[in-house]
């Protein structure tokens, strides 16, 4: 029983990280039709911004305070980078999908090379508060506390985004834009401004995902964004591109399948199971690939 509890909570924690990484990707694709391969770079930027903040702040502040500041910085840096990338690289290329893919892939490669050039290729250990490294007894299972942080962060983001979409004018424009962007423009609404905000929101979520992935791995590294991005794409496709709730459900499913398969089958089978899950979803519901577009 305790094994199951541990696996489920760990799977939910992993799913929470995937949701943080995938939610922005899904919104960006849903509204703008942009497959943002640079999303992993946003995660790396958030992770390194957080790490630099942690190491730059005086130890006297305590690791908990430094972590809280680091999370805020990761969110801000992710949002800023998302905003700038949209304005400089993506905006001139709307509706030119091949060029978008080339630019965002190029940016992701460049970002990794830049990080490696400045801070080296090795992973850098990331401090975390003692309570985050400790465990909590849950129905006999010793669950690492950081899993609860991931789940709480994902729930906050999910709730915040749902509230944004449901109760604000920006959310109304986003929902309409996901359905029919051209018609939103034809009603005199400046969709471009909405694009910028959505990219910034996606960047902030990715920055947070990057830093929390660092907490999960106890370190940050230049390549962490790439591996997270693959799972984020899988989650977005399974959940239906552009669907936030679908993304949340898919993230939980992927996290649980991965954990359970790794434990009950063999180590490494979890990754294979996720790919099989993706294949099954695409066979049963091929429209997942098309999403809102």
């Amino acid at each position: 029983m305790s094994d199951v509890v541990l696996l489920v909570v760990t799977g939910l924690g992993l799913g929470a990280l995937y949701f943080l990484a995938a939610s922005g990707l899904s919104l960006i694709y849903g509204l703008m039709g942009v497959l943002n391969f640079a999303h992993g770079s946003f995660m790396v930027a958030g992770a390194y911004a957080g790490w630099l903040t942690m190491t730059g702040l005086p130890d006297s502040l305590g690791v908990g305070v430094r972590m809280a500041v680091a999370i805020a910085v990761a969110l801000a840096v992710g949002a800023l980078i998302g905003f700038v990338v949209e304005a400089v690289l993506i905006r001139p290329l709307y509706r030119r999908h091949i060029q978008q893919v080339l630019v965002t892939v190029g940016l992701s490669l460049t970002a990794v090379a830049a990080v490696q050039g400045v801070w080296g290729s090795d992973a850098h250990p990331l401090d975390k508060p003692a309570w985050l490294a400790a465990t909590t007894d849950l129905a006999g299972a010793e669950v690492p506390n950081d899993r609860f942080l991931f789940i709480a962060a994902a729930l906050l983001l999910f709730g915040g985004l749902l509230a944004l979409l449901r109760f604000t004018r920006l959310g109304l424009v986003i929902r309409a834009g996901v359905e029919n962007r051209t018609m939103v423009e034809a009603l005199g609404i400046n969709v471009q401004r909405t694009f910028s905000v959505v990219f910034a929101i996606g960047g902030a979520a990715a920055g947070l995902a990057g830093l929390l992935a660092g907490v999960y791995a106890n370190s940050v590294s230049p390549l962490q964004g790439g591996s997270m991005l693959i799972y984020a794409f899988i989650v977005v496709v399974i959940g239906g591109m552009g669907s936030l709730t679908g993304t949340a459900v898919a993230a939980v499913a992927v996290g649980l399948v991965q954990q359970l398969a790794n434990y009950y089958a063999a180590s490494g089978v979890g990754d294979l199971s996720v790919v099989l899950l993706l294949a099954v979803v695409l066979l049963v519901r091929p429209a997942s690939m098309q999403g809102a577009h």
Partner: protein
Amino acid sequence: MTTTTTTSARRQEAQPILRVEDLHVRYGGSHVLQGVSFDVPATGVTALLGRNGVGKTTTLKAVLGLAPRSGGVALAGRDVTRWSVTRTVREGVGYVPEDREVFGGLTVEENLRLVGGDVGVDAPIVGELFPDLVRRRAQKAGTLSGGQQQMVALARVLLRDNRLLLVDEPTKGLAPKLVTEVADVLARVAQTTPILLVEQNLPVVRRIADTVVVLDAGQVVHRGPAEELVSDPDLTRELLGVSMRREARQ
């Protein structure tokens, strides 16, 4: 002074709300509009007619900026060809597209609030022209009938102050009773706002249009009073390939 003011007012009245000059649209290798030119008077309904595929919808889209265009489009004397779609709409060009294109996942209220801001179905014009929408404010637009969706599409655009409305086949696919209702609404709207109307239903054209512009193969082939065209069966058959008698029976 009085004379000058009167002359100026007359000139303004005589000035078309929309002037389209030598408008071209190309999609890839296809030259859809080949130098279309016409004026839309500042009052009444101007019907844009023609057989299927001659470029009527493309003309509306090109006026709005939704189609890649070259040539001249002027709104009340101002060149709009370099304006974005958003700016054109904000400057007073309302657009009701073919097939309505309401946002099916949004409620009726949300569809209207997209344009009306804080005011949705509670706007006086909605209660006056579309009372059914007030009752259906919480219903998802995607679950409405075609006629109700058309009402949403019309109401949505009327929440803005328009100087010109572009309305594309508003009666397409509607039952006869709804066709009459939509025509009634357009006739009332046209009392205050000029309309450029793409319409295949000739009885509707006869009822509400003042002038007609007929397109064929991407070019204007006829301009004139609506009555002149629809009361001449031979001309109607020649330009549109249909007979008014047959249309009336339908």
